[in-house]
């Protein structure tokens, strides 16, 4: 399990990285944290001729509030999100989800941009980003930028719209209203494994206890993380009763199309997505009722 030969490039700024990408295109790969790429290289499932190590581009390592967004630079490490007070304050959903990413050793190296660009539908950050209707900022070699929403960016299993000469520059998580409450629920075979299914949910409560401002996405059960639009629409104005939750469950099952793999049948994962959606909504609503900001 040793990687094949490659040439190593280490740009020190974004433009230089993009220039390399333009020059080497499909023969090259971006190396940031390497936590997903290097295993595949060790197995020789991936053998790029050029590796562009962007980890030293300091300008892409930041977490800051930018208007209505929490802006996270592509090279921000998972552990930085985990330990950020700002994230806990303005995006508790992200703070809750980040702990589900691999193990501490992985979070110490893995980056936000890498996780997004990898396009794994079982990864936590894409699920959170999708639920929140976040944005992905993409840098082009000519200095221009494109801003995509998750539905445009995540195309299918492990495939994004990113072109060979483009790079993820920033990920923007919308800051939700202070009254909203959120929950991230995931089940995996073992602690730290990719989830069999995961759900990110945001809710707000009207004075009468009915729901407003519902945002829900599921991960791991479709080729891309998916907003449960019908569930969201359905829940607005509803109170959580057994009947309502049962219908949420049915709607969720209809919205996902998982595949059978070693860890679960399609039928199981579909059902699981529904169960977890119900659980996530219940937890979020519970938190909203308690009225306390949830920060774990």
């Amino acid at each position, binding site marked *: 399990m040793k990687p*094949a030969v490659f040439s190593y490039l280490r740009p020190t700024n974004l433009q230089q990285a993009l220039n390399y990408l333009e020059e080497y295109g499909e023969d090259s790969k971006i190396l940031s944290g390497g936590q997903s790429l290097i295993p595949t290289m060790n197995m020789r499932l991936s053998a790029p001729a050029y590796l562009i190590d962007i980890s030293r581009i300091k300008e892409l390592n930041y977490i800051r509030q930018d208007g209505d967004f929490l802006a996270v630079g592509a090279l921000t490490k998972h552990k930085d999100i985990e330990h950020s007070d700002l994230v806990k304050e303005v995006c508790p959903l992200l703070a809750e989800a980040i702990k589900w990413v691999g193990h501490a050793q992985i979070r110490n190296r893995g980056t936000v941009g890498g996780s997004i660009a990898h396009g794994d539908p079982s990864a936590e950050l894409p699920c959170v980003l999708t639920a929140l209707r976040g944005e992905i900022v993409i840098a082009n070699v000519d200095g221009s930028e494109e801003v995509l929403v998750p539905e445009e960016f995540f195309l299918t299993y492990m495939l994004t719209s990113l072109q060979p000469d483009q790079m993820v520059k920033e990920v923007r998580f919308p800051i939700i209203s202070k009254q909203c409450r959120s929950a991230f629920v995931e089940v995996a075979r*073992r*602690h*730290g494994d990719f989830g*069999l299914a995961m759900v990110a949910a945001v809710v707000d409560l009207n004075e009468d206890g009915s729901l407003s401002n519902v945002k829900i996405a599921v991960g791991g059960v479709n080729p891309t993380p998916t907003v449960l639009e019908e569930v969201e629409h359905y829940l607005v104005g509803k109170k959580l009763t057994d009947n309502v939750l049962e219908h949420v469950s049915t709607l969720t099952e209809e919205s996902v199309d998982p595949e059978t793999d070693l860890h*679960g049948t399609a039928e*199981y994962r579909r059902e*699981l997505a529904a169960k977890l959606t119900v659980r996530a909504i219940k937890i979020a609503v519970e938190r909203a009722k308690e009225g306390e900001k949830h920060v774990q």
Partner: protein
Amino acid sequence: MKKYVGQSIKRKEDYRLVTGTGQFVADIKLAGMLEAVFVRSPQSHARIRKIDISKAKELPGVHVILIGDDIKGKIKPITQFESHSAVPPNVAKEINPKIQFNYESVLAVDKVMYVGQPVAVVVADNRYIAEDAADLIKVDYEQLTPIVNPFEAMKEGSPLVQEQVEQNIQMEFHLNLGDARLAEQQADHILKTRVHTPRLSSNPIETRGVIADYDLRTEQTHVWSATQLPFEVRATIAHCLGWTEQNIRVTAPDVGGGFGPKGGVHPEEIVIPYISNLVGRPVKWVEDRLEHLTSARQSRDQIHDVVVAYRNDGTILSLRDEFVVDSGAVNFFGFTCAYNTAYHLRGAFKIPNFEVTSRIVLTNKTPNVPFRGAGRPEAVFTMDRVIDMIARKLKLDPVEVIKKNMIQAHEMPYDQGILVKDGARLIYDSGDYPAALNQALEMVEYDSFRKRQKELKKEGKNIGIGISTYVEGTGAGPFEGALLSVDSTGKVIAHLGASPQGQGHETVFAQIGADALGLTPDDIVIKVGDTAVLPFGAGTYASRSAVNAGSAMHEASLKLRKKIVAIAGIILGTPPEEVEMEDGKIFSKENRSHSITLQDVYKRARPAARPPLPPEIEPGLQVTHYFVPPTVTFASSVHIAEVEVDKETGFVELQNYSVVHDCGTVINPMIVDGQVQGGVAQGIGSALYEEIVYDQNGQLLTGTYMDYLLPTSMEIPTVKKGHQEFLSTRNPLGIKGVGEGGAISPPAAIANAIVDALSDLDIVINQLPVSPSRLRGLIKEAEKKQNSILSK
């Protein structure tokens, strides 16, 4: 005198291992050493049409490439290991075995039989280059029909894994006691069921590895291997390569876990010495994890069809079991696992009528060998699921059915009426199984658990408790040796044939020697894992080292003591029987203040003309003892698992796990507890997480650690442990083995606990692992069945 035996002495091994200065095979570097990589078959069953190595050969840094054609007639194939698979004549008479010859060429010749089989080997300056070259080798395969399902494999006209093995049945035997069929006619109930244990991979965190260094001047080859059986490796190299055995020295350095499969001599252990000889340089091969998951020998994989006759009160009258062992492409260990299963099936129970038919079947999968428990976890999962199913059928608490059938303390030694694999009668030497059960039930507060269970049920929570028991033949022979000597510094050096993979041999055998010799464990240096120092040795497997090597150490120490005392008597001017040894001092009982040391005795024992030793005393302080046990000794245990099941998701939370066990005399309680905890962890793995999966084409689906799930610290609770100490009557110290035990019962205990948690549903768990997806499927099915009954 027991001063150190029974104490939790800290391990001598630890210092080097926690400072990073241990030496595992991968850590060894020799001048001029090359590295090898094996090209492995991506096909499960295929003819090799052509292998093109031309491009690979040209790659700078590549020294040699070998394929099957290159070794034809030069390297003999690996066949069954005679020392493990020979059937004693009296056993043969009883079970009438039919055995067909099977083998594996160390590099595939003409055809491949499993994914991962070595097809070629590349030797280069380093592993990186060797892998580059391996990528350039093109093998042209002609696919053959893969044989994956053992039942299909046995059908007349099925394609063959090995041409000479008819119907792919490599071995079968039949065992009969009493009259099961008659019992079935007389019984109140008959239970028929199929029980399946998954195929597993042992996964020590250190993978396998071999280094060979051929020396032209002496014609010696020094081989370092991460093996459990250095002597077997040496014998197999000698056999396959036609070399003089004494020209081969096999060293097992620090070995990072074994658990069984590191005891099966693998093709790489033959190929690497051959190549070192060929290129005249040291050659190293270290298995990577992907190779481990595909190519290292696997284990378990049995399917049992049982018919059980029982009475209304739960008394079992007969057990009939027809089981198939899916051995993969080759069976190297004869009837080891299969017969272990057969003779352990009835465990702690009295079942007078007993019939077993076993077939060991070849398929296009990685060959199987013994793995921690070696046939016993399969037997216990089958038997204890049967007990639990009977209890549920009769609406009795499983404890009642267990007690009804259990062998009582006053019946010991208990004769089970058949033979052990080694040909001795199957007689349990000592133990009190009902007492162990009661102790375990108290530990878990069984009655209050039942109350709690009822209350929680009302809240919609599903907790359950499951019991499993086993009786395990441990300390299998044939023998183990100890060679003891005293050196000029007065230290006792003990060479043992049994080499460890983490069991603490350097500590526990020093404890035994210290007691026998009146020394401290620090005065005794244990040397293990080297064929150069002892003519015979077996190895570490089958929970046997403490029993065999421990007894050898004890007896050899007594022999050495006798010699020391005789010579000390000469120095002290007292008869030997008046000499005492205590805390390193040697003195006469009469005059304790005047003492000498081992150094003094060493000097006096040297061959010399003046002053000479009396003619009846041979010069030197060196003794050897080989301990040969009469047969195995029987350890036993009761395991109780407590779980909570999330009905909605199928997730099982293991809340508590308790063990009461008897391993006879405990040499080092800390190490024994560690063995139990570690064994249970592996058992939990096989109950809930681990399974090697092949698809219908014989392609491996669990080839990485993303798919083959080893339990982490989040999944393994701290086991509550209780002890019994019924001494074995079959060795001088009363020791029974403990290494494998922990791994035997968890699948049964956990499956029973899950069934118990869901007792309002009719669920049968006879397949492992109990993954959330699988369990949720069973729950849904049972709910559907229940609803349709209710609606009727």
